[in-house]
């Protein structure tokens, strides 16, 4: 337990925060040259926070280095969500989750690389592509690729704050061989998150082991008046896992991945979730793109972000700025999302997806009447090579999210746990529980890791 051990040492005064922070910053700079895990290393901020904490360590996370996914606002540090259109945007405020961490003494070391606005499964839809810690020819997964990459590589106490819309925490956690928790929708405030899709976005945590997630989770969860979708209830403290089931359809994959996951489990039932299997991908993408296309409407070169000289009419100017700075994938999602919301198509696509989401939620809820935790592989494949990713069509890219979109659509907490490797490439087991039952995941995840 490197993280908890460090926090204890800090409390006893047995370790220098300044030395630790200087060392991790040095390490981050070196690793970044090869692995591109950071868009920005916030050295000045980290050193000033370390100076303050060294004098008087204060808070539950006193002196702990934390990296933050680029889409989460950190005051006075460029936060561009991996995009070009938000280049040079320096937020004048902290996201609630960042404020909570800093108030508890955490040290913010930088912003991690990601797909533009979270639009991707391999962190390749951006200008700074993170390279897998175990093989630089391969992807870290996405969209929180940089967070997972650095979490795996660092030798120092550290956790990363990331974000998932359709699988962006579990997927890179699996490909990089670390632990990643996506909490219940609404349990962690989204205030200060550069949104992708409001009804799906969830801020979560990555660390080397499941055990290390808990102290961070305790700090970042909880109601926030600044986020109107923030839940005013706490998570359930009952962590007892009595019955588990594996999801039948999710194991129709590479038998090597299947065998590794099943070899770590005992006493499980098999459950079928046919509606989720059939409808999760179109439901997810229609909702996500519809919401993304409205969220991206605010990027027009006026109040912040990349811009051009003022010229032409309102519409001409905004269209020029947007066309110049959005990448191909952002444009594709804007077109698809705008289409799904247009008069004449709205009922057939957008509204239909919202109703199908109810079917999927109901299917999971029925399963949780009987089981505490549902289990599947996190990803249907091992981390692919960049040369293989280049050959995928957009649809084939989207289909990679087949196992992670289900719990994300339903806002269910889920945890990807590192579970052995095939060669040097890690495999992740995905644990899913009912709303607000994160403690069951953390408890069961620790048990799997011990094996």
């Amino acid at each position, binding site marked *: 337990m490197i993280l908890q051990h460090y926090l204890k040492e800090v409390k006893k005064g047995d370790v220098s925060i300044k030395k630790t922070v200087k060392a991790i910053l040095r390490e981050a700079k070196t690793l970044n040259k090869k692995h591109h895990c950071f868009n920005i290393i916030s050295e000045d901020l980290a050193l000033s926070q370390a100076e303050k904490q060294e004098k008087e360590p204060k808070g539950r996370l006193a002196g702990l280095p934390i990296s933050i996914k680029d889409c989460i606002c950190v005051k006075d540090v460029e936060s561009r969500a991996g995009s070009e259109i938000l280049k040079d945007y320096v937020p004048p405020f902290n996201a609630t989750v960042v404020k909570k961490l800093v108030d508890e003494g955490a040290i913010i070391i930088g912003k991690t690389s990601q797909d533009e606005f979270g639009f991707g499964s391999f962190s390749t839809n951006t200008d700074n592509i993170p390279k897998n810690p175990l093989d630089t020819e391969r992807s870290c997964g996405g969209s929180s690729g940089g967070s997972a990459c650095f979490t795996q590589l660092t030798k120092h106490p550290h956790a990363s704050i990331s974000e998932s819309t359709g699988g962006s925490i579990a997927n890179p956690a699996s490909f990089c061989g670390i632990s990643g928790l996506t909490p219940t929708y609404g349990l962690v405030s989204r205030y200060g998150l550069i949104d992708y899709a409001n009804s799906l976005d969830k801020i979560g945590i990555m660390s080397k082991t499941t055990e290390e997630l808990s102290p961070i989770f305790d700090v970042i969860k909880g109601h926030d008046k600044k986020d109107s979708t923030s839940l005013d209830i706490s998570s359930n403290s009952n962590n007892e896992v009595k019955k588990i089931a594996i999801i039948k359809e999710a194991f129709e994959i590479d038998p090597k991945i299947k065998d590794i996951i099943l070899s770590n489990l005992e006493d499980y039932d098999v459950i079928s979730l046919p509606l989720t299997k059939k409808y999760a991908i179109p439901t997810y993408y229609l909702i996500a793109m519809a919401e993304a296309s409205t969220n991206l409407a605010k990027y027009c070169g006026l109040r912040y*972000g990349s811009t051009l000289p003022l010229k032409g009419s309102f519409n001409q100017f905004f269209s020029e700025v947007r066309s110049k700075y959005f990448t191909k994938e952002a444009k594709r999602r804007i077109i698809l999302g705008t289409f799904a919301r247009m008069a004449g198509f709205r009922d057939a696509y957008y509204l239909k997806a919202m109703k199908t989401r109810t079917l999927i939620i109901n299917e999971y809820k029925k399963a949780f009447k009987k089981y505490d935790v549902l289990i599947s592989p996190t990803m249907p494949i091992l981390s692919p090579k960049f040369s293989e990713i280049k050959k995928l069509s957009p649809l084939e890219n989207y289909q990679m999210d087949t196992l992670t979109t289900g719990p994300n659509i339903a806002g269910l907490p889920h945890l990807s746990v590192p579970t052995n490797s095939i060669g040097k490439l890690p495999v992740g087991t995905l644990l899913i529980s009912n709303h607000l039952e994160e403690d069951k995941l953390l408890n069961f995840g620790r048990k799997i890791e011990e094996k």
Partner: protein
Amino acid sequence: MKVDKELIKKVAENARLNLTESEIKNILPELKEILNNFEIIKKAPTKNIEPSFQPIEIKNVTREDKTSKCLSQKEVLKNTKHKSNGYFKGPKAI
């Protein structure tokens, strides 16, 4: 519904995007492939099923109409090149 060049142009205009001819040419078959694949959702048995606009029940939040602390004018304008006399400066409206 026909997904063709004209439709893409119309959608792009609504979304305030100027797509080049080659962008439209690339995006058209991709969009067709995606939408064809997503057609399956039309068969989902959603009769008498209510839509879930959120994944978990969320109550409306109201608050008293009171002023509170907010960002200063200087902070708000810090991130733009287009400003004048303490205001944002935009393109010509009329």
